[in-house]
């Protein structure tokens, strides 16, 4: 039965994340953005809040319930945390983007081995390395190589734009075992930090999400054990590429949820600014025009959220959702740009208040949501290819 209301568990997950966003993120948001640094105290607070106590209980309950709903629970809390601060939300300790490929492609032994340590109460991060200087959306053209020598894989190549790349305990790195196979030669490997030949390069300076760590990773004859190839479902030749793409089907709704969270924050702040700080002397008509624009963006915000919810709901039910995942990501990515730029424009006549600083920060943060996890153009290409499976759309 179609239902847009949250269950008690879903509502609890959302409320909890909102509390965290309000108490831990908003207060340090502008400062972290300015300095591009996150205090250790934040990391430990997040570790405590998300890996112990109520959050831990919520996770256990989710697993005991009849229906799987990790994706829904995840996107509900992602939206809240991005409402707090999207950059800080990417730095929350945990396996992060490394988890989906390990869960979907790892054997039970590999899952236990690689994800187990995240439960030990210490600070750990994980990362996913897909993008290279020469390839972005076209992951099939990857040039990082993996060659099996005896009992070890030898990795060579260059990854960049890797979130949490420099602080991660392990990085799921995609590499090709045979370039002539194209996309079918791509495999996911788990590379632990400290492996000889695995070096962190530069940390990027960015226009937005400045507190989020974006690293360059270099692999030079980096040797890892043979069983670090995620091989749970190796029967299909396309396994590696599918893992990469399958990861995107799960993470695009999360990125969409983050975009919705920023858009909501900006929409709220702009509405509040118009009510409280719009300079006297604005004509009734001008004010009405602004209100109508904000009303309409409020509707679009709800549609973006529903697209995200649907894609995550499908993922939980294991219904193929590439098209829907791309739709929510494309829609939310475009919307967050629209809402944040409107916020900057509408508040332009104001004093340089804290509201305006937040709006300007969110405007800078927003742009990347139309780019990472597949650009706006790639999302449309994915949607079109799903709509026309029989046509080759290059």
């Amino acid at each position, binding site marked *: *039965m*179609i*239902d*847009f*209301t*949250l*269950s008690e568990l*879903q509502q609890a997950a959302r409320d909890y994340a909102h509390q965290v966003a309000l108490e831990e993120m908003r207060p340090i948001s502008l400062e972290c953005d300015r300095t591009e640094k996150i205090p250790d105290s934040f990391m430990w607070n997040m570790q405590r809040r998300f890996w112990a106590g109520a959050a831990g209980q919520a996770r256990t309950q989710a697993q005991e319930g009849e229906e799987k709903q990790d994706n*829904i629970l995840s996107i509900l809390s992602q939206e809240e945390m991005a409402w707090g601060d999207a950059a800080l939300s990417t730095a929350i300790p945990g396996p992060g983007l490394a988890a989906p490929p390990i869960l979907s492609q790892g054997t039970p032994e590999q899952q236990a081995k690689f994800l187990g340590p995240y439960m030990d109460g210490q600070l750990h991060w994980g990362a996913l390395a897909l993008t290279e200087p020469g390839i972005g959306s076209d992951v099939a053209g990857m040039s990082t190589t993996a060659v099996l020598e005896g009992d070890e894989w030898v990795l060579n190549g260059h990854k960049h734009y890797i979130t949490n790349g420099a602080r991660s305990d392990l990085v799921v790195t995609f590499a090709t075992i045979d370039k002539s196979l194209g996309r079918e030669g791509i495999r996911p490997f788990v590379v632990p930090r400290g492996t000889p030949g695995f070096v962190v390069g530069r940390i990027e300076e960015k226009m937005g999400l400045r507190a989020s760590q974006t690293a360059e990773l270099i692999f030079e004859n980096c040797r890892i054990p043979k069983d670090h190839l995620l091989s749970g479902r190796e029967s299909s030749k396309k396994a590696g590429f599918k893992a990469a793409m399958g990861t995107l089907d799960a993470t695009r709704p999360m990125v969409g949820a983050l975009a919705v969270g920023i858009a909501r924050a900006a929409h709220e702040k702009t509405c509040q600014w118009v009510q409280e700080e719009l300079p006297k002397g604005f004509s009734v008509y001008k004010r009405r025009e602004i209100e109508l624009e904000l009303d*309409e963006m409020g*509707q*679009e915000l*709800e*549609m*973006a959220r*529903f*697209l995200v*919810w*649907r894609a995550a*709901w*499908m993922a939980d039910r294991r219904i193929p959702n590439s*098209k*829907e995942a791309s*739709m929510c990501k*494309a*829609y939310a990515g475009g919307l967050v740009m629209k809402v944040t730029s409107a916020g900057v424009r509408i508040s332009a006549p104001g004093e340089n208040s804290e509201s305006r600083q937040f709006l300007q920060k969110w405007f800078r943060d927003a742009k990347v949501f139309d780019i990472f996890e597949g650009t706006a*153009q790639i*999302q*449309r*290409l994915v*949607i*079109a290819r799903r*709509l*026309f499976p*029989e*046509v*080759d*759309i*290059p």
Partner: protein
Amino acid sequence: MLNFAPTQEQEEIRQLAQSLAMEQVRPQGRSAEQQGDISPALMKTLTQTGLTTPFPEEYGGSGVVEAVTYTLIAEELGFGDGALAMNIIGSLMGPLTVLLAGDKSQQQHYITPFSDASRGHLQRGSLGFAERTGGYYVTEISATIRTEGEQYILNGSKRDVIHGGQSSPRVVLVRLEGTSGTGGLCALMVPLDIAGARVSLDEGKLGLIAAPSAAYTFENAPVSATCMLGQPGGSGVLRAAALYNILRAGVACGTARAALDYAMDYARGRIAFGRPIVSYQGIAFMVAEMAMKLDAARLLTWRAATSWDRGTGCETLVQEGEAAQYQAIKIAKSATIDAIQILGGAGFIQDHPAEMWMRNAAAME
């Protein structure tokens, strides 16, 4: 708990509506536009299926209306033909408003004829909502009544009232003098042969030609107190107004989907420079955009429908219905315009229905 799948029963009803839409409604779209109305034979077929009699069984109906189920039906009818769908929904809103706002004897009197096996399909109801000074927003309703002895004195206008010239019950949404917003809204059944009432049939319309409509002007028109449905300012009136908007949104989603589907077929088969035109990103991205925005608007519509079924507070419900119809009509307009663009020259020619759908979408506001 979040869920995006219709029930098994809803899915079966949707499929029935879809097959009727494709086999009966779509083929008659163009001829209905020429006739300016739905054919009695088609209306009879639909009535026999029970799809157009969502009334309680005690009034001979097929079961009381549920917004989610009927939104699914409205989309399928709109997928068949937007104008015929609006014709059907427009008529239905007459008895449905009586059902939601009226008392038992009014319900018995006005709804039962619609369920009649031999003559029900000839019955037409109507609900006057939008005015010359606004759209389908409750706050923009400015037609007023004031009490004078045993009767009401009615002032104001209504536009685009589907079946407004020939309907019974002929319901109009008005407000008690001195009220605003969602307060004081009333549903009044108006005879047109009263002093101070003027009816003009809409002619030479841009679109929705197959849904005949009329405009009203009331100047100090006296209406008997017995014409009031239920209590003035009751929540049933607001639920009726919200339902109309939700179903209009459903029809608009169907119109957008028809345009998308038609454009997809064309883009798949049309070859340019040796390839199907959809293999060019310029076309492929347009189609992707249409599909994405349609899904977004449909979800907004579904949300409003679930709120209606759950009995959500009227203030919220009215707003959700208004947002749904606004966004759904917006995508119906842009998708039909884009469909014509994808068809190229063929889109401009009346051999294809795309141009008719574009005119229909534009006439929904």
